[in-house]
């Protein structure tokens, strides 16, 4: 399963990179969103997916059966941070659009010597 997940994560990263390299602000933001989803899954996969029970103390569950709690804690932090960051750049883009009336990063720069 981990190997399959590795390829899924790679695919997520690829799509995220491709979107982030575009000139449209919304695509860039969606790209960062995909990137953070990929990163969360990557951390989870790195810790191993073989846990048989949630890492919560309960009767009849041995410590060895728990899923690894550390990646989960890291991801929980990451989720909330990425929410904050996504919201921030979303509003940044929204405000930029309001002021400059474009969502094209090349036009925002004010010159067109960039061939892309």
């Amino acid at each position, binding site marked *: 399963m981990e190997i399959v997940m590795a390829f899924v994560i790679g695919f997520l990263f690829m799509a995220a990179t491709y979107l982030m390299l575009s000139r449209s602000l919304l695509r860039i933001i969606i790209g960062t*969103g995909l990137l953070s989803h990929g990163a969360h899954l990557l951390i989870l996969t790195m810790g191993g997916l*073989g846990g048989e029970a949630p890492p*919560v103390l309960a009767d009849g569950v041995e410590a060895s059966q728990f899923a690894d709690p550390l990646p989960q804690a890291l991801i929980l932090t990451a989720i909330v941070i990425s929410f904050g960051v996504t919201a921030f750049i979303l509003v940044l883009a929204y405000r930029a659009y309001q002021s400059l009336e474009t969502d094209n990063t090349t036009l925002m720069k004010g010159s067109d010597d960039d061939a892309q």
Partner: protein
Amino acid sequence: MNLIVAIFLPILAAFFIPLLYKRVKSLHTGWFVLLVPLSLFLFYTTFVKQVANGETFTSTFHWVESLQLSFISYIDGLSLLFSLLITGIGSLVVLYSIFYLDKSKEQLHNFYVYLLLFMSAMLGVVQSDHVITLYLFWELTSISSFLLIAYWFNRDASRFGALKSMMITVFGGLLMLGGFVLLSMMGDTYSIRELIAQAPQLAEHEYFTWALILVLFGAFTKSAQGPFYIWLPDAMEAPTPVSAYLHSATMVKAGIYLVARFTPIFASSELWIWLVTATGLFTLVWCSFFALKQTDLKGILAFSTVSQLGLIMALLGAGSMSYHVDGAAETVFKYAAFAAIFHLINHATFKGSLFMIVGIVDHETGTRDIKKLGGLMSIMPISFTVAMIGSLSMAGVPLFNGFLSKEMFLTAMLSITEFGLFSFDTFGVLFPIIAWIASVFTFAYSLYFVTHTFMGTYKPDALPKKAHEAPIGMLISPIVLAALVIVIFFIPNIVATYFIKPAVLAIQPFLYSDVSQIDVHISAWHGFTTELWMTLGIFVVGGLAVMTLKKWQHFYNRVPAGFNMLYDAAINVSDTGMNRLSRLYMTGSNQTYLLYMFASFVVLVIGTLFTQGGFTMSWAHTAPIRFYDLVLIAVLVSGTLIALVTKSRLTSIIGLGVVGYSVAMFFVIFNAPDLALTQLVIETISVALFLLCFYHLPKNSRKENRMRFQVPRFIISVAVGATVTLVAIAAQSQKMMTSISEYYKETVYSLAGGGNIVNVILVDYRGFDTLFEIAVLAIAGLGIFAMIKLRIGDKGKEKKQLENK
């Protein structure tokens, strides 16, 4: 410990200055500031008697012990003399500035904070026994000098001068740091005293010459010697109290101090003697020559300061020769270092008073242009008298202290020819000739300064203001200094006992072991010696030069401004060159920067995997693949594809939502209930946010342009994806150590009293992460709030929409 506190007292006092400036409006802030240097001056005078007997004082404060970094304050004759100069002249300058700077017009708190900062830094320079802290204080003086020169920062010339002085002195300071590091490596100690103790061994070392040259770079740039003199004339844009204090009496003498302090280490080197003496003499003659070209009063004084510093430098170089002469204590070489210190004191008195007079002239007439001035003698009699005393002392006329040290200087230069080593017997004959020529120019510019300002015809129409005598408060400081000029002439040997001899002992420990061995006696009359005839010649030729100045001053216009042009060219080339270089890769396009980032990510990660052997794959210990896993993967991949290819914005937002929810489902099936809950709620709120922003956008922008397929973009994307896949597989295949999770699992109930390990990690084991995380979240929230609520209006005015609802 008292000594360390004394060094830092001005900086500590500086913290209260802005407060006092804001609170106490009725009283000039300078009166409070005056207390600091004055009390420090009195504090240091208590040491004079003991130091004159050859005693020294040390106190140490350990700063970073693991780096052997500590403040060591060391008081001997040399550092005490400088400390007294810094605090003494400092008190007079602060007193003067109270009347010079208007309390209602000037930013006094800035001025005095910088000035106090400088005072601490300068005391630190002259008292530090630790080379690294010496360097720190050294750079602090450069920085405070920069701030003070640029005090009137609205003027172009001020900023230019500030930058120039900073560039040159910091450049030299960095080289000096290199020299210090070499020295401390050679001697395995940071203490200057310990380095001096091992001077003979250091001289054998292969890096010795390098250290010598690097340290001299620091000294020469700071004291504006040789080609580095160019910063000082431009630094004259500073307020006059600053010029009088930093750029004549104290900071520029830091280089002199450094040379004096390191003389015991380097005196054995031929190169040292040549460099110090020749650079000093060159500066002396070059700048005294150019002083006559200047029409700005402060310009004249700036060039004069540089050339006088050159004189002191040359004397220190000659003083080093005594290291090589047997029985030097009996020969004339004993004069050189003595004369250097003596002239240092004299220069501080007469040049300080002259600067203050220039400030008064500027203040009362509104100009410093010598062409517009003239005939002020009858209007400003007191200023005239002080200026006359200062100028005549600078010119080396009897009855003033400058005469005494000038005579000693001529004696020392004459004796160089007798020095048999290092081919000084052949070239040496040049030295007295150069010294004589320089003295002629010195005499000439001193007279030029005072006669063209105060004598001649009064030109009231040329002056911006109606001239009158300065208020008495402003005159106190120059009068005190001028009085010292005369007093020192009559009691030079008392000054010698208390100040000069202890300092000479610190410079030439190889010559004397006790102050009583220094048997130099200063006297005004030596009989009809060569020196006397030279002096008379100086008066005659110099007087003639001033009288005929109008006839030949225009020759100066044909002399190119060599060193200044070099500096300008260097700054220009580096400016445009760096600009061009950074434009090569700073295209201003987001995509380019992202490309750099992604490409370096791929190269670095793959490179690391490659060198660390991260490519060993293992398929063991993997979880089984279940049917619903595959279904979920299919959903996730299709969501990604939707977001990737769609043109409709709404659809792409929904695509992202699909991905988010399926990630939440992954968390469910991989036994992470906390994550699943959080992800579900977050995803809901995120989609709501996206739609909210989307809702506010105009309708015509709801479609994206079609994304053209681009090969470089695609290649980079695939490379990033492949890299991440490799990392994930490598991480799965190799477990280098047991996870710390085992510890968490075992102790979660016994130590942390909880059951949900994830939550306990968040709030307890790794609480720091969470603390900073909510801080980041709060900052993001406030940032968003600010972005939306604070608008900069069309006219650049802030339209605050911050009413609380």
